[in-house]
């Protein structure tokens, strides 16, 4: 029998992998993809909770999260393209994100 714990553990694993990916990858697009992975992990936990709570709210929330993700993707990739045009790179080390 699959319980909510199974789903939450899976979601936690995926979320952690996403976080690790964000921290170790240098390519801005791949970093963004890892963020999408995190969002998906969260969405999975929302839907799992909604199912086991007999509630629809979680599914609605996921719908909105996806909408926001789409808007973010459009804007974020536009930003990445703008950076690339000026700098010919999407490597965040060259963009020096952790500068004090």
């Amino acid at each position, binding site marked *: 029998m699959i319980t909510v714990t199974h789903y939450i553990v899976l979601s936690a694993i995926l*979320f952690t992998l996403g976080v690790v990916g964000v921290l170790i990858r240098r390519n801005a697009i791949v970093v963004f993809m890892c963020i999408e992975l995190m969002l998906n992990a969260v969405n999975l936990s929302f839907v799992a909770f909604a199912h086991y709570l007999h509630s629809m709210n979680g599914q609605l929330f996921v719908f909105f999260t996806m909408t*926001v993700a789409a*808007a973010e993707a459009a804007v974020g990739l536009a930003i990445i393209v703008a950076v690339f045009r000026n700098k010919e790179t999407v490597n965040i080390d060259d963009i020096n994100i952790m500068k004090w």
Partner: protein
Amino acid sequence: MTNVSVMTFNILSVLPILVLAGFGMIVLFVDILFSKRLGDKNILAYLSLAGIIIAAIVSRGTTPIALYSFNETFVIDNYSLFFNFIFLLSTGLVILISHQYMKRENINYGEYYALILFSTIGMMLMASGADLLNIYIGLEVMSISIYVLTGLKRSKLTSNEASLKYFLLGAFATGFLLYGVSIIYGATGSFNLKEIADFLINKGDVTGPFVYLGVGLIIIGLGFKVASVPFHAWVPDVYEGAPTAVTAFMSVGPKAAAFAAFIRILMTAFGSTHYEWQKIVYVLAILTMTVGNVVAVAQTNIKRMLAYSSIAHAGYLLVALVAANTLGVSGMLFYLLTYVFMNIGVFAIVIILSQRNDGFMQINDYAGLGYKHPLLAIAMTLFLLSMAGIPPTAGFIGKFYIFSAAIKSGYIGLAVIGMINSVISVYYYLRVTVVMYMQEPVREFYPLTISPFIVAAVVISVIGTLHLGIFPSKIMELVQQSILTMR
């Protein structure tokens, strides 16, 4: 098929939002359709200001009870009305100061004004949301607008980079926020703040650690937006890279909105577990104040210095959150209002003095300003003193309220650290003043073109800073009322 119940919804409660949305689109279309005939495009600023004034008229006043609408997901109470006032004031002032800047930098698009107005909608939604979904959507509306605004100068690399940094870290932080929301949802079965609170009061002991995890993640997510310390890495670069007017905008409104959501979530929904989250916020507050102030000392670029100073101010505001009593929250609201005046005032002067492509941004560039442009120098000094918390300015009163709230709640150590930090901050704020008055000019001052808009903004800021500093009681009353209807 079940029937759809007629919902409780109240169009009046979202009227300010509708007004802003409408004016945002109008500005956009005036720019698109008539841009050739407009000439200097002053009308865009007029229209946006008109929108803000109408929205302010619509949302003015107070309400005796909290009005819930949209099935309890949206609430109008004095708290949200006060925040609406802060947002509209800051947006209005930013439009005043940005007009000249946008023209000089050649980015005077209708999109700029539209995005600023849309972003304000997001802030209002955050302050009025009684449901985590509304707060989340508001946060995203606000943030995505600002990502775009930051990158508005497409041809300039620092602007692009700032935008990319803000975007990636912002999206990263949102992931944590969402995970927190999800866990809270699992542990309580609701997104509604009141329902969460009810559940926690009745059955909170069952879901203990799970809820703490969720609250912790939400604090990370919002902590990023208010620029508290472990999550502040984006602030200096983004402030420096963004167009200065946008920097002014994002240093005030979004921060206030994030604090509005912070208070509403923590106090309304998790009031019963406040001993747990107070510990986290306590640490955050100390770190934020200290790092912000200490690093600010070393800065040479005025925008970077202001960035760290804004981090430090977030730290003071977090102190108020730790206190978590009526005095603390009212101190925070008061401080946010004064912060609007003094911060936008400083940025107004930075914009007046800066040249095309953000030249004239080093602190040393300000040498001799006191002799060349005494009025500007006096205004600048006033704002900086207020930021440092020196009487009789508004900043002093704000800090006074916050620290006394902390002491009252028994956090004497925190208050002491806060005061030590204030003393540190005096050093770097006064350094600018010293440079302005005591040093010989290293560079020629260019002849300044000062538009009436920006003068109005400076005058309003000066009046605000002084008025709140000398006669704080009236506003303080209003602020205290705001909190009463919240719970």
